[in-house]
């Protein structure tokens, strides 16, 4: 099986028409579906949170084996489909960068909740940075999570009264007081 890094690629990744935006409606729907799932899968396993449309570093958009690459139009189409589904968000008006929610924000909130419970941090205080890169986070999905997404998930929990976010001593770090 072909791989991209340690990601197992499906066979149809070598099917040239997969890389051309199909005009026929039914075919297009199937194609979009397959791309959406593949992008989410890939981002989840590689812990990619942001995709830049024009950059070459999102390897999934090209296949050197068959010498095919998704056109800009195709990339925008597939990412827009993810956005419509609520699994992604455009970070800028020019649609150049896309935030990928391979877990929905609510899912992340649940993950944080479990994380806190598993580590006995129900009444403690942590900085946001510690949540995403501290010792406890190692080996969990929280490790290396995108800050924007983390803040969103924390706010969801804050709204439910499970924690409180406050500004820290330094300008760029915030703290969280759990009360679960």
């Amino acid at each position, binding site marked *: *099986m072909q791989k991209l890094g340690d990601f*197992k690629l*499906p*066979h*149809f990744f*070598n*099917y*040239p*028409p997969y*890389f*051309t935006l*199909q*005009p*026929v409606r*039914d*075919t297009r729907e*199937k*194609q979009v*579906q*397959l791309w959406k*799932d*593949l992008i989410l899968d890939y981002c989840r396993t590689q812990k990619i949170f942001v995709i830049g449309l024009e950059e070459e570093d999102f390897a999934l958009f090209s296949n050197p*084996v068959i*010498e*095919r690459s998704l056109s800009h139009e195709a990339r925008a189409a597939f990412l827009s489909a993810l956005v419509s589904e609520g699994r992604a968000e455009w970070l800028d008006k020019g649609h150049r960068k896309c935030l990928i929610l391979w877990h929905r924000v609510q899912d992340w909130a649940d993950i944080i909740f479990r994380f806190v419970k598993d580590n006995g941090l129900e009444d403690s205080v942590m900085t946001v940075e510690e949540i995403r890169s501290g010792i406890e986070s190692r080996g969990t999905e929280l490790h290396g999570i995108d800050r924007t997404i983390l803040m969103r998930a924390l706010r969801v929990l804050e709204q439910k009264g499970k924690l409180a976010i406050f500004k820290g001593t330094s300008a760029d770090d915030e703290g969280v007081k759990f009360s679960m």
Partner: protein
Amino acid sequence: MATSSLPKADLTSSGRPVFLPNEIECSILSSVDLECDDIPNFPLLKSGLLILTTHRLLWLPDNNPSSSAAAAAAAVALPLSFVTHIFSTKKSVKTLFHSPRVRFQASLDPSKSVVMTAVMRGKGDTDAFLAKFWENWRARAWENDVQTQTQAQTAVGSSSVSGSGPASGSGGFYTREGAVRMVGVSGILRKEQEMWESTDKSLQEAFQDLNALMSKAKEMVILAEKMRQKLLSGSSSKSSATNDDEVGSKEEMQDWMLSVGIVSPVTKESAGALYHQQLSRQLADYVRIPLERAGGMINLIDVYCLFNRARGTELISPDDLLRACSLWEKFDVPVMLRKFDSGVMVIQNKSHSDEEVFARIKALVTNPDTLRTGISASDAAMTLGIAPGMAKEHLLTAESKGLLCRDISPDGFRFYVNLFPEISTDDVYLVKDYGIYNTWVRVASASRLE
């Protein structure tokens, strides 16, 4: 004492002579003395610029401040019309050592004729100058000025511009043979005029031929029509015993006439108001054979060309063709007009089945090679035996039916068999044991191992 001196030559602010209308500069020599022993008090014209034009001989003082004597002289111009004779140079021992001289006779006033000498102290080619001097004098360009006055005034803004060409240019408006020489802007215009006139003449001649051809063609059509009538009437009056022969030769005749083209073209005159109907039927008849040869489908543009070529004369317009095709719906003819999504229009047999073509395309696109590489429109054209344009239409139609997928890349525009329906969204890694996806996976992996 006659104040017969040379007329003054007008100069521009930069020292160039002001030329007359149509006057063209032909030759310039420097370091020339102009002498005239017959005129007392003839000005000292030493070491100046001698300019030969189509109309005059000009002498300009050299602007070199070192020659103070020359500075005192003013520019003079001798109209060539005053020249009465030009002496030829005699080559002798004396002339070898002296500066070349050009001597000529001129009459500055009607009563008196003087001899003038131009002494060439410079490096110029005196013989060439002399030759041109002769030419210009003989050409008498100034006499044509009256005729060409209006022409020149509109054509040439300032003849001094046209005249300031290379010094060793042509010798004037008219060659020795009297043909008009092409010089300056008026020359260009004259050349264009002549070209236009000759084109016009050759066009007229060509149309003479065409008219002759058309009248002959009409005769041929009448002849063929007569023969056809004869055959038709002949077969109905003979007894049955000789019928077979008649029928045989009649068929032969018809075949022969058909290969020549349409026997009697349906014209607006012959069919009048039924023109389009008759045309429509004739077209349906005609198009049968080309349709077979093209594999059941022809581009409308090709039909237009073929049909008109067969008709020979009384060509039809694209509009007529379109209307004729549209009328087929009303009749029971075995052909139909079809318009594709891309706008391409074709004529096809009613019996033509898209399904049959799709079956052939599917077979083409699912062999081991084409599974891997797909097909292009030209590949399809070759295999299906149809024109590439037609092939592309078929491929696009097959795509819209979900049979094929497109692949656009720097390699071109290709089509593959559509595998998407067989890919499972629940498990993207699943490949069933059967089906085209399975075959494709095996073929694709095999090729990568090569």
